[in-house]
């Protein structure tokens, strides 16, 4: 067996092992889906009546936003799961076995990626069930799925890196929410960025989650955002953010993994 074939085989085996946990630890999937579902219910039926966005129903405005921010929240799910795995002995077993070490991390990423995809599908189905009608053309649908996959891939890598650096699932969860929640609220998910005060508006203009939210909204509802370069060109900005995250996280994660894990 050539090295790359062995690598692909090991990755597939380790991805499968990661996915087997999904039905057996349902709370892990629940962690990924419960937060967006709560937000959907809260903003649709509690706060939403007080928010008016010109030219579009609030449901059609907010649901693409939730989907956009959910892509980024994958970082927490992937981080918590990875951190948990790293504190278990099983990763040490894999590392001491004659398999490609790279496959341990790619298996982890692929497993987490699939779990995030499942989470997003649940959120989208939930939104559709509540009466969201995205206006998607075929080309836009392809573009949207591609960009969403890229974003989930990038944020999964970021999460896996965080999970390896912080070896406590609770700490990853806590720190993740402290960083991600404000960014998600600022990202124009629930209210238009244009109406924000100067300081939050400035942050929102360059918040990476803003690009995700604006992209999903533009492709599903044809709503164009404005205010900064990345909001005018959200698809390009989203792709760039993802590539930057990957360019930084992949080498760091690999280095971290190959270096000795203390303890």
């Amino acid at each position, binding site marked *: 067996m050539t090295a790359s074939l062995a690598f692909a085989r*090991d990755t597939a085996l380790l991805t499968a092992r990661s996915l*087997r946990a999904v039905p057996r*630890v349902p709370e892990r999937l629940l962690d990924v889906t419960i937060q967006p579902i709560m937000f959907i219910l809260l903003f649709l039926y509690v706060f939403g009546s007080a928010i008016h966005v010109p030219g579009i129903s609030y449901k059609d405005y907010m649901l693409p936003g939730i989907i956009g921010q959910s892509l980024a929240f994958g970082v927490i799910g992937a981080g918590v799961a990875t951190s948990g795995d790293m504190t*278990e002995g*099983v990763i040490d*077993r894999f590392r001491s076995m004659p398999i490609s070490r790279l496959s341990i991390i790619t298996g982890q990423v692929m497993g987490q990626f699939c779990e995030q995809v499942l989470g997003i599908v649940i959120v989208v189905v939930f939104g559709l069930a509540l009466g969201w009608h995205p206006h998607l053309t075929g080309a836009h649908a392809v573009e949207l799925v591609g960009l969403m996959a890229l974003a989930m891939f990038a944020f999964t890598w970021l999460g896996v890196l965080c999970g390896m650096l912080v070896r406590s699932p609770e700490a990853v969860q806590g720190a993740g929410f402290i960083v991600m929640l404000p960014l998600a609220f600022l990202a124009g998910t629930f209210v238009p960025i244009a109406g924000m005060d100067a300081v939050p508006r400035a942050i929102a203009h360059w918040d990476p989650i803003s690009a995700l939210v604006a992209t999903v909204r533009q492709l599903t509802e044809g709503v164009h955002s404005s205010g900064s370069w990345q909001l005018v060109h959200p698809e390009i900005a989203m792709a760039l953010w993802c590539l930057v995250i990957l360019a930084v996280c992949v080498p760091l994660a690999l280095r971290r993994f190959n270096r000795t894990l203390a303890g």
Partner: protein
Amino acid sequence: MNERPVIEAIGLTKRFGEFTAVEDLDLNVQTGTVVSLLGPNGAGKTTTVRMLATLLAPDAGSARVAGYDVVREGAEVRRRISLTGQFAALDKNLTARENLVLMARLRGRDRREARVVADGLIERFAIADFRDRLVKNLSGGERRRVDLAAGLIDTPLVLVLDEPTTGLDPRSRQVVWSTIRSLIDDGVTLLLTTQYLEEADALADRVLLIDRGREVAAGTPAQLKAQVGEQRVDVIAADGAEFERLAALLREQFEISESTEQRTVSVAAPDEAEDLARVAATVAQAGIAVDEIALRRPTLDDAFLALTGHMAHEDASPEEVAA
């Protein structure tokens, strides 16, 4: 022995910041032998075996497994060594059998072969009763057995067991011991770390006593025990007068040592329970009042006391060694 040792470490050293976990450790494990690293928590046992299994890079010194350098030829080393860690190295969300099948597939077996290998191990390690339970729902002893089995998919050139019985109840410990004994009977080369003198004694051909990352003593279990003292029966007299009678009585029949201060007479007890019974019968017959009659085994603490005390004459200052 002119064969090359399976494990050969020279001057192995590992630091974590200011803390030196392992310092200048030499280690030799010959083919077909069982070597035990014996020491308390934090002595550097786990760090040492992690360096040998290529999970940690040493800061100084070198180690070879089957002639392959653990730093430069890690992949070759990993092909020949199997490490079973202190914490069960299994996927807790898979069943015992699924874990074994996964490990076998990662070692290159196809689906069918992997099942055959897993089922063979399930039988050999008596896992059948809980083979389809998730590992997270297994008891400590059950988990250790699956863990041991997972380390033996391919017969490794050397098996490394890191504290295989720490945290187990006495019954599970016996089961794990008998599993390890059967591996030893099969001729496996084994490096075993433990906190229990008893365990090293029961399983190992050679013991390295280590403390704070350094070797304190080395030898066969018999040699170490000779330095530590054998198991003994301690008889504590009810008062000073009874102690005098007790010492006089036992001196006639047994090999004893006595401590007037603690009113204790210690009788060498190579035959354990039999000796205990004989001493107790003798004392009862003479009608001497005693507070306690008990069989005592030397513990790791006794070993350290005896051995570091002994080393102190020849080696470093007593504080340094005994601290």
